[in-house]
């Protein structure tokens, strides 16, 4: 396959084509789904191959992708990409332009401790069947499910600047949930929450200790039926890592994808309140807030050697000591903003066009443990486990509901509360952050499901976070 990719690049290395890149991926996906204790689906798409060719001609991108790797199809795909660029350039005023980059030639092969694609299938099913059965053993639990997805992708990337890399990675996404009902109201609890994807193999599934947590989520879901709701208008919130990862994702991650500044995503994902003039001076958060994009973190789902336009992996400091400094960019957009490309141009499969995407998007650690932070909080709530999320077109006004909250009084947890809903305005919220837990609480939390682009792509990525405290947040929103 490497030869095939190299041959295409050789064919595209002609003066009329300013730049071209070619990607090839082989993707394995397997998913298992239990509902109310019974296996509903076991599905696999293995060895799924695709190829994508992107060319820059007359200052306009053209792209074509295919799953058919016959010579005839590849020739057709190449011609389609060229024709798409040429036609597109007839409706193009501002020509795409970017700086050359030194070539990278490298290979990265990740080996998980327990390869989910070669482990015994019966053992794998039995592992989840056992959990699925346990979740059904209480009459107040009216619904439950257990799911797991396993992923492996081999990728070759090559471009006309001489970059040639290949890589192999493994990711897992296990989850369980229960819903308790008293006939009138329903409350659900998940484990380990919505940012539950990890880079690695089955060892990462075991690390979540599902069996140990089944009784806990059943009890919490049932207890929520009789728990009180939040009464205050505003309160101090400590946000747990799993939900904070999503808060970071929605209100900073997407907001600092610079393609949005130029309206490239207006038709679907939306705009951003961030403007180029804010770089270097806008107070995005309090002084404690340091946010960075780092595709060199091997434990994250966003690790790579180069992104999907040949930019080597790197860390970019997006917010430093509270001030907005940088953006997540492509080579084209970095040039438009006078920045260095941040290595964030990524596609899900080879037959999809790369877009500005989060890789490992992280909130830098502060100091101290979660227990200490709770002890130092006079009055407030610890909230975690996302239930509802929503943010506006400009990534400015968000509203989240978590499955559960724990009331804190004089540094102690005194009970649980029903589904706290809180609302905020992005910079006001991040400026209200007055504590972030330390390295001991910091970890990479991942997802398989970040949607962007048209045709849509769902991307794997990670967020490094530790629990953090936000002062005086609006917590009492009712439907």
């Amino acid at each position, binding site marked *: 396959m490497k030869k095939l990719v190299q041959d295409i690049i050789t064919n595209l290395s002609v003066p009329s084509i300013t730049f071209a890149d070619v990607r090839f991926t082989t993707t394995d996906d397997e998913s298992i789904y239990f509902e109310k204790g019974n296996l509903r689906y076991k599905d696999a*798409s293995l060895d799924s191959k695709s190829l994508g060719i992107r060319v820059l001609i007359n200052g306009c991108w053209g792209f074509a992708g295919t799953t058919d790797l016959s010579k005839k199809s590849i020739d057709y795909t190449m011609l389609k990409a060229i024709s798409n660029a040429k036609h597109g350039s007839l409706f193009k005023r501002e020509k795409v332009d970017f700086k050359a980059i030194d070539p990278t030639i490298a290979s990265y092969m990740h080996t998980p401790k327990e390869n989910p694609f070669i482990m015994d299938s019966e053992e794998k099913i039995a592992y989840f069947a056992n959990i699925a059965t346990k979740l059904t053993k209480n009459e107040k639990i009216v619904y439950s499910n257990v799911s797991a997805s396993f992923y492996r992708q081999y990728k070759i990337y090559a471009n006309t600047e001489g970059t040639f890399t290949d890589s192999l990675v493994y990711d897992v996404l296990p989850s369980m949930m229960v819903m308790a009902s008293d006939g009138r109201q329903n409350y659900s609890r998940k484990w380990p929450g919505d940012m539950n994807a990890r880079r690695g193999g089955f060892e990462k599934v075991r690390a979540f200790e599902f069996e140990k947590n089944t009784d806990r989520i059943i009890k919490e879901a049932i207890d929520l039926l009789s728990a009180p709701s939040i009464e205050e208008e505003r309160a101090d919130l400590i946000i747990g890592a799993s939900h904070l990862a999503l808060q970071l994702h929605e209100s900073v991650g997407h907001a600092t994808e610079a393609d949005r500044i130029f309206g490239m995503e207006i038709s679907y994902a939306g705009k951003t309140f961030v403007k180029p003039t804010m770089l270097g001076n806008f107070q995005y958060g309090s002084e404690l807030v340091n946010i960075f994009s780092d595709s060199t973190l091997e434990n994250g789902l966003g690790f790579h050697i180069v992104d999907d336009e040949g930019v080597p992996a790197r860390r970019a400091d997006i917010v430093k000591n509270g001030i907005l400094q940088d953006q997540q960019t492509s080579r084209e957009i970095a040039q438009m903003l006078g920045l260095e490309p941040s290595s964030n141009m990524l596609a899900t499969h080879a037959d999809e066009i790369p877009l500005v995407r989060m890789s490992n998007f992280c909130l830098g650690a502060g100091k101290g443990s979660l227990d200490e932070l709770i002890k130092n909080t006079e009055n407030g709530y610890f909230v975690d486990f996302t239930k509802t999320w929503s943010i506006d077109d400009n990534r400015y006004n968000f509203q989240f509901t978590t499955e559960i909250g724990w009331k804190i009084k004089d540094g102690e947890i005194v009970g649980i509360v029903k589904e706290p809903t809180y609302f905020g305005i992005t910079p006001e919220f991040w400026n209200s952050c007055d504590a972030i837990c330390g390295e001991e609480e910091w970890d990479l939390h991942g997802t398989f499901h970040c949607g962007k682009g048209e045709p849509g792509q769902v991307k794997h990525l990670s967020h490094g976070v530790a629990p953090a405290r936000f002062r005086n947040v609006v917590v009492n929103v009712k439907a």
Partner: protein
Amino acid sequence: MQDTFKEKLLEIIDKNPSFKFLFAYSDWETDFLRFYRSQTNYNISKRATALNTTIYKGKKSLSFSITNPTIESLLEKVDEAMITIDALPEDPDFVDIEKDTRKAEERIKANNIEQMSLEKKISYLTKLADAVEPYKFKIYGTFICNNEYTHLITSNGLDKIMRFSPIYFEAKAVSDINQVTVLEAFGSENALSFDIDSIIKSLIGKIKNAQSEVVDVDPGEYEVILAPRCIGEYISYYTWSCCSASSLDHKNTLLEGKLGEQIFPANFTLIDDPRNPMIVNFDYNGEGHLYEKTPIFENGVFKNFLVDSYYANKLNMTENGAQGACLVMNTGDKEFDEMIKSTKKGLFISSLHYMNFINPKESSITGLTRDGTFLIEDGKLTKVVNNLRFTVKISDIINNITEIENKAHTFPQSDNYGQFSINSFSMPHVKVKAFNISSSTKTV
């Protein structure tokens, strides 16, 4: 699908009577133009061929998909699956795969990738960009043509072909000055009905409204006029969540035991109508069941859940194959202009963004407005309003409909998470009282 390949599938079914097979062979092609700032962002062509297979043995099942399948790769996977299936646990609720062998009348569908060539797309976009330029607006959006073919073959004798070739066009005009945005969309399988001049006329009308001052409004209850795509989106969330047989099984709908009861006022009728000439038509649902006209609400009375084969068996219900992809709401007796004129103070909402359920059982939801929210004062659209957040129960919205337009409008929907599939709804403008705005985004 080539005849030899189809024969092989039938041979596998014949040779293995102790198993049941469900084969879905699909060939999907798209030409996708994305534009921004009145110029091309990128052009994509993509083609994917796949075979999705599910094998059943008694109450055990196993699925797999193969991209770009060959007879060899298929036989290898089938052999493997017939062995591994033995080790799987049973699903005691599973009874049988789809049994509906009735066929829809075959319709000839043009390949709109060919009908709507890249040259044509570029010429339309150039005309549209030129038309909005004098107002200091630029166009942003997508112009998509798909050509899809799925052939379903099963052990229960289903042999059905589904073809789609929808056109999906969405253009937003965005102000160079303050980013105020308005939207125009087109979704149909009839390329001849794409009329760039009427699209331009409509978009310019919206741009004229969008040139007024931008203001903020306080949270609270408002009388609102919802554009067809907004009421359509609320209703579709409600239908998929509260009216599906799966929600009944999951104990997550208040409609349990309410078939035949008056749920909403008599002015509300909703039909899942896959052959309605206004919208993208479907012959079959995803399982191959004939997709027929199914009333969901008739004069406010709840008539049908959406019931697929699995939950029909599990819950002992009659399968109807409805899937809520072709929702059509009744029209009323009001001219749209009259609806605006009779509003003393209110909001006009053009489009919605990022909705999510807070409590699906109660149909409570939060989300935002976008692409043009306007203040109505003394019967006129007077000002642009910042995008607003609403926190509402969809059932309250339907209960609070006070006026319905006498005309329906079609708008496209896309499933952007799977393979980009396109459907459309037909809805009128509606006026709704006591609509809860929970906060402002302070941006447009």
